[in-house]
């Protein structure tokens, strides 16, 4: 009996130990960034870019890097944007961020505050990197935390056939012309409307791309000395303009729960004449509706505005984890992606504009609209004031909720902006 019990104990002990090891192994972070075989360092690089590029293209770019740097291996963690964001939010919280991370300007402030991403200014100095070649850097309190690798602008997309059918000769350049064109397009009948405004609160980026863009296009700002200035005249004028579009009935119905993809779909189907959309969607629109006759243009500005037009943009930004043991190697990868040749190549395949000033994307094989957009980009200024703000998604959502109250007639523009200002002031100190 005693012998049997001892054997049982041993079996149970072994089973428990095995379970414990398995559970701990499953729960523990897999620290693959440690030096691997032959002294090579493995960097983990989490981003959503690989998922948005043609299959295998990003792997090729990274393979070139590892060929040039045989002591560094790169493990790509590619997932769609939303999953990458969630993964990074939890990774930042638990200090287990991958060594190199793809960043959206909207996340930078929070990650930097948590101490999750490294000060790139220091890394650039250590590597004696020439910063003058960078088109822009996202800084918090004077320190760079993100470098935009590729920029995607949001111009005005115009369905030329609908515009012609409505009897409008030119693409609208001012707010008045836009309202008139939208009215005429909506008057053509059927389910067709002039404009689409996605205000879904789950992903409230419509505030950035489709609402604040009106403000930035006319050189306005939603901030004054880094503090919210939502009750200022330019913001009020932009919101009143959006309200006037709503009152005129030119906005496609369902906007309060419309998502960005619905907007693109409605434009692709010819149900909406004009939208403000990412240049990255040109190929998608052409693929789904090859016959759609459309063009891109600068955003309409206030009547009589002569300055440089702000153009909303989104970036594929890059940053380095603060907890990585291989900051120098991680920065080598950043440096490689920002180099003139690689940056031009990456921008070309991504249909975006390079983060390296000297890089020239090759438009020879891409759609002629990209060339048009590049001209608009060079004539205007990239504008996105949400970049670098804390809790930017939350800021967009609280503004969104107030705008919804305005559009449903439950609040006046002044009251709504006053409340939004109050709620933003509690976030932006």
């Amino acid at each position, binding site marked *: *009996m*005693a012998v049997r*019990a*001892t054997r*049982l*104990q041993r079996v*149970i*002990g072994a*089973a*428990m130990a095995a*379970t*414990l090891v398995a*559970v701990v192994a499953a*729960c523990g972070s897999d620290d693959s960034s440690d030096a691997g075989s032959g002294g090579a360092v493995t960097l983990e690089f989490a981003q959503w870019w690989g998922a948005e590029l043609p299959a295998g293209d990003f792997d090729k770019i990274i393979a070139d890097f590892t060929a040039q740097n045989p002591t560094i291996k790169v493990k790509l963690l590619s997932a769609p944007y939303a999953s990458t964001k*969630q993964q990074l*939010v939890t990774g*930042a*919280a*638990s200090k287990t961020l991958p060594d190199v991370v793809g960043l959206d300007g909207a996340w930078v402030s*929070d990650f930097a*505050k*948590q*101490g999750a991403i490294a000060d790139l200014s220091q890394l650039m100095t250590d590597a004696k990197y020439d910063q003058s070649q960078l088109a822009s850097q996202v800084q918090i309190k004077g320190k760079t935390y993100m470098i935009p690798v590729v920029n995607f602008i949001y111009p005005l997309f115009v369905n030329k056939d609908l515009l012609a059918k409505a009897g409008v000769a030119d693409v609208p350049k001012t707010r008045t012309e836009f309202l008139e064109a939208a009215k005429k397009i909506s008057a053509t009948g059927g*389910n067709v409307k002039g404009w689409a405004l996605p*205000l*879904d*609160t*789950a*992903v409230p980026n419509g505030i950035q791309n489709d609402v604040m863009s009106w403000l930035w296009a006319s050189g306005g700002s939603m901030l004054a000395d880094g503090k919210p200035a939502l009750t200022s005249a330019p913001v009020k004028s932009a919101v009143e303009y959006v309200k006037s579009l709503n009152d005129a009935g030119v906005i*496609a*119905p*369902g*906007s*309060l*729960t*419309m998502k960005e993809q*619905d907007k693109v779909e409605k434009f692709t189907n010819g*149900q909406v004449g004009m939208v403000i959309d990412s240049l990255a969607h040109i190929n998608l629109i052409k693929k789904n509706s090859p016959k759609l006759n459309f063009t891109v243009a600068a955003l309409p500005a206030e009547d009589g505005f002569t300055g440089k037009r702000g153009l909303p943009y989104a970036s594929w930004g890059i940053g380095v984890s603060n907890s990585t043991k291989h900051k120098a190697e991680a920065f080598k990868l950043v440096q490689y992606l920002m180099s003139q040749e690689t940056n031009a190549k990456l921008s070309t395949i991504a249909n975006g504009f390079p983060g390296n000033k000297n890089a020239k994307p090759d438009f020879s094989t891409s759609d002629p609209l990209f060339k048009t957009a590049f001209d608009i980009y060079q004539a205007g200024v990239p504008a996105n004031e949400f970049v670098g703000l804390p*809790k930017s*998604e*939350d800021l967009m*959502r609280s503004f969104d*909720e107030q705008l*919804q*109250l305005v559009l*449903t007639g*439950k609040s006046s523009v002044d009251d709504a902006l006053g409340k939004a200002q109050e709620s933003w002031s509690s976030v932006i100190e």
Partner: protein
Amino acid sequence: MTLIAPETTAPAPEAIPGRPRSALARRLVPYGYLSPTVLLVVVLMVVPIVMVISYSFRDNVIVQENSVFAGLANYTKVLTDADFLAAMKNTAIFISVSTAAHLVLGLGFAMMLNTSLLGGVAKAVFRIVYILPWLFTIAVIAVIWRLLLDPSGVINYVLHTLGVIQQGVDWLGSPSTALWAVTFANIWSGYPFFMISLLAGLQGISGDLYEAAAVDGASWLQRFLHVTLPQLRPVIISMAVLDLIWTSQQFALIWMMTGGGPLNTTEMLSTYTYKQAFSEYEFATASAAAVIVLLITMVLAFFYVRSQRER
């Protein structure tokens, strides 16, 4: 001899200390068998729950290194937040209407499938048709219903053609209809589970009971009220309680259909908690909201366990 004798008796005193060991081992054996499960429950359930509860009493958790004890401040903040109270109300409407409709539809369809009026093939076909909504993942259901309920979608087209409505209704974008639209989609996606369980329950009811009732002259309605329902009662109660718990945790459908909007009219406790955590990075208030949901769910779970014991 004298030397041998102590040797032969020697094992006896050794066996005595061995006895308590074997008794101890025997007592430990069941725990040994349980240990893998206990370990998993501790790692996957107890630790996260305790962590969330501890977060709910602290401030600046997760995002800052030095969190501080905040007492009940997070609970006060959550319970006085108008958005949270609206989310409570919406969740209550959403889960009660969903569960009631699941029950009625599930029972109706189960009785149709249990009827003797239909042949085997017809029953099989209907069984497949009725169960289809259950086979779709929530993401697909959300996309299907977003498309169907679009202002220029199929539902508006049909209603307009039939003359029921004059112009397209903005089902998901209008504050007055959005909650009912998402509830409808949830009812559609969830009734088959009720149907299957109740069908199994119906098939377990002895035919003798119906025969006896028929002999007593009971009408169809009387047979339903006095034979079918009492026989199904245990199944109905446990299904209803389980459904209340599951529906209260419905997140994906709401998030993908309306994101809690328009104007918070479809905000649920789950979407509220998610926004607190992943948009405002207020993990402490998110934890407090989650603990409140846990308490509500525990009350429901208590009734479930009690109904199970009664059985």
